[in-house]
């Protein structure tokens, strides 16, 4: 399936782009992360410490075990610091 993957804050900086469209058969967020890490050193660096990474599937906060069935957009970012 085609998936839009978005990056924010220092994840965006490490990966070098704010978003990419990829073709993937990942079933969960965890599978997707493994595939992204395998792509290149930049992705590997961004996902080196998963304790510092949060994610959203179709703009809803999700955890690593969340299913990607039917998903169109997955975003990765550091813990949020609003307010």
């Amino acid at each position, binding site marked *: 399936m085609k998936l839009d993957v*978005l990056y*924010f*804050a*220092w994840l965006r900086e490490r990966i070098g782009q704010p978003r990419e469209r990829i073709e993937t058969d990942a079933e969960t967020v965890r599978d997707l992360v493994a595939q992204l890490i395998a792509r290149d050193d930049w992705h590997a660096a961004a996902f080196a410490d998963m304790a510092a990474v949060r994610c*959203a599937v179709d*703009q809803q*906060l999700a955890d690593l075990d969340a299913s990607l069935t039917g998903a169109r957009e997955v*975003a990765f*970012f*550091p*813990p*949020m*610091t*609003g*307010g």
Partner: protein
Amino acid sequence: MPARIQPQPFDLAAELRGFGQGAGAVVTFSGLVRDDTGQMTALEIEHYPGMTERALADFGAGAALRFGLADWLIIHRYGRLSVGEPIMMVATAARHRRAAFDAADYLMDWLKSRAPFWKREIGPDGEGEWVAAKDSDEAALDRW
């Protein structure tokens, strides 16, 4: 009962005109850019367009139900903000003070740790560090 995300400043006064008509208690919170280190000239705020609007609207509506609010408002800015500028505000209106206080407090705890915003400090030499999330902000959410 809106949630708004915008780069431009807002005027707390203007936003509150007519707010909470018929309610007995109105609470507001405003956050201002603070320079703790003496090394910061501005704050840059990144957000997740699309998700942010939806998350704020959903969460505000949930808080309104939970606390029985007569009215609520969330405004959050993004982009580059100078020290002293307002970053965001929430306002809550209810019949009694306890609900108005608790709802504002709850919205703030949520905004700090669950709304998709990220802050970076800007110093005299340009872009500095991304602000780290605080354990105390995460812990504050457990109260609710």
